[in-house]
């Protein structure tokens, strides 16, 4: 009976109770999503994007207030500390993700100009993805992990297939969906076995079990491995990467951006969180597998990217390669390498969004998404070309851009933890990487381009500028993010 009261009263309580830290950011975000739908009904499409950005700003603020929060997770008067757990990791990553979402929304205003009638749906879904992301950065229970992953994934299936009349989009959606569902099944099996072994879904207990008797229980180990595989699928690591190039290529460009940036980093955060808490105890057991996967990922990602002609596909493979680098942080989990992950994620997000902010208008005007679309951009639009160049350089990891310090940071952490050989491999791989990033630059500056006028709207320009500016800033003054965690 009493829970019924709570149930009725939770909205107000939950919404007003400032002490519920993570939970209230979650609620606000969800509310924002609802608001989108409401505005559709109230037919205020024009205001939608500004309102969302405003809301995100608020949420960002709220989130940042949690930085020095006490570990108290009241939700509807009930203690939810067995479900979520906020810490600096959560707040930092949430901040990053909200920032990224802000950029994405800014771009989506012009990207979805022609599809106004679906705008609210897209916006709402993206906001919900952000919700899922927040869940994933703060879960302390496998249920939450599962739900978070599913929220993000299912929303992405929808967005990937959202161009209904475009068979490529359909294909991307279905492929992503089938493989994603398959991966979720594997994840569930893993979770189940873990549960069977430990008798609980709560991360702390699992962690305790792993530390104490994890290595003795085969069931737990198998469960852990399956879970890890599922997460490797989500972050597109070899050999679970096959979905990403096709899906990236087929999806609408903005969705590709979303997947490549926000979602990828989200899953990495979740992965890191799981490995560093729940499965910490069996790190030696999983690391052997992860080393192999990491090596394979870096090699495959970089090599295959060499032969790509489609820009989105290229970035997909580069994303795989970067996943390989980021896996290094998960390897070197012993020394708290989450800071490295955060920094690298930030630099990666900035560079990729910057690149897409240039690419979207180009694609729109030229109508094809291959690298040739950029031909002659250097002469037509030096500003855009410069921005794209800097983003590419950042991705290639060339100072003074953030990408370089990110790489350096990750390599340093990995070596610190004694993964010398694999780091050396990473270094070699990143040499290869330079080549395909420069293919884009060369296309802009050396190939003669047709005279299709490219006109980036103000918002795109702003996004480019912001991304590049932040890349440079982080590259020159990394103190803000480095060693934050």
């Amino acid at each position, binding site marked *: 009976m009493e829970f019924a009261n709570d149930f009725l009263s939770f909205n107000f309580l939950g919404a007003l109770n400032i002490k519920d830290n993570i939970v209230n950011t979650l609620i606000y975000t969800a509310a924002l999503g609802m608001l989108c739908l409401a505005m559709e009904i109230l037919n205020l499409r024009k205001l939608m994007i500004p309102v969302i950005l405003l809301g995100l700003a608020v949420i960002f603020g709220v989130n940042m207030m949690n930085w020095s929060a006490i570990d108290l997770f009241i939700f509807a008067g009930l203690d939810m500390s067995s479900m979520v757990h906020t810490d600096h990791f959560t707040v930092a990553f949430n901040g990053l993700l909200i920032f990224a979402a802000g950029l994405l929304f800014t771009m989506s205003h012009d990207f979805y100009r022609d599809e106004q009638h679906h705008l609210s749906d897209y916006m709402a879904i993206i906001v919900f993805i952000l919700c899922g992301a927040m869940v994933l950065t703060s879960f302390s229970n496998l*249920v939450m992990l599962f739900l978070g992953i599913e929220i993000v994934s299912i929303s992405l299936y929808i967005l990937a297939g959202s161009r209904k009349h475009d068979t490529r989009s359909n294909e991307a959606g279905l492929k992503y969906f*089938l493989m994603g569902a398959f991966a*979720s099944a594997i994840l569930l099996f893993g979770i189940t076995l873990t549960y069977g072994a430990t008798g609980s*879904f709560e991360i702390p207990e699992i962690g305790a079990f792993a530390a104490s008797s994890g290595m003795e229980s085969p069931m737990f180990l198998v469960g852990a491995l399956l879970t890890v595989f599922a997460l490797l699928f989500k972050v597109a690591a070899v050999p679970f990467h096959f979905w990403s190039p096709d899906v990236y290529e087929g999806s609408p460009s903005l969705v590709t951006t979303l997947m490549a940036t926000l979602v990828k980093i989200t899953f990495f955060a979740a992965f890191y969180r799981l490995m560093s808490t729940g499965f910490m105890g069996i790190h030696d057991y999983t690391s052997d597998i992860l080393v192999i996967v990491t090596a394979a990922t870096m090699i495959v990602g970089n090599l295959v990217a060499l032969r790509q002609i489609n820009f989105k596909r290229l970035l997909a493979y580069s994303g795989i390669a970067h996943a390989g680098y980021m896996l290094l942080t998960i390897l070197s989990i012993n020394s708290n390498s989450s800071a490295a992950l955060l920094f690298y994620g930030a630099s990666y997000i900035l560079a990729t969004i910057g690149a897409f902010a240039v690419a979207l208008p180009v694609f729109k005007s030229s109508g094809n998404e291959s690298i040739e679309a950029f031909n002659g951009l250097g002469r037509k639009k030096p500003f855009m070309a410069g921005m794209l160049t800097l983003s590419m350089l950042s991705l290639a990891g060339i100072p003074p851009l953030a990408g370089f310090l990110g790489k350096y940071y990750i390599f340093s952490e990995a070596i610190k933890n004694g993964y010398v050989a694999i780091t050396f491999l990473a270094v070699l791989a990143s040499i290869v990487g330079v080549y395909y990033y420069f293919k884009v630059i060369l296309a802009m500056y050396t190939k003669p381009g047709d005279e299709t006028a490219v006109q980036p709207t103000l918002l795109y320009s702003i996004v480019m500028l912001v991304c590049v500016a932040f890349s440079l800033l982080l590259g020159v003054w990394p103190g803000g993010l480095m060693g934050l965690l």
Partner: protein
Amino acid sequence: MEQTAQLVPLNWYLLLSTFLFCTGVMGVLFRRNAIIVLMCIELMLNSVNMLLVAFSSYSGNSDGQVFVFFIMVVAAAEVAVGLALLVSIYRNLGSTDIDILNKLKW
């Protein structure tokens, strides 16, 4: 009651659901019809559910069973989305065969 019940060891459930799971996997690999593939995935999920229930009732804490609810929720949602995708694809291609979806490659 107890004695008789003792006769169904938990391992058997483990075995059974693992087998079902792999059957589902095989189905996913095996079939070209997206609907069937989806159903096979459902089968995998159900094997998981069964195992969860088994664990929960053998170990005597109900978390597992609660989890099963969530799995059902997600399964339902997934099916809804998946079938919606299928429908829209069928509208374009007139087929639900996944092997004809290979425009995106290399």
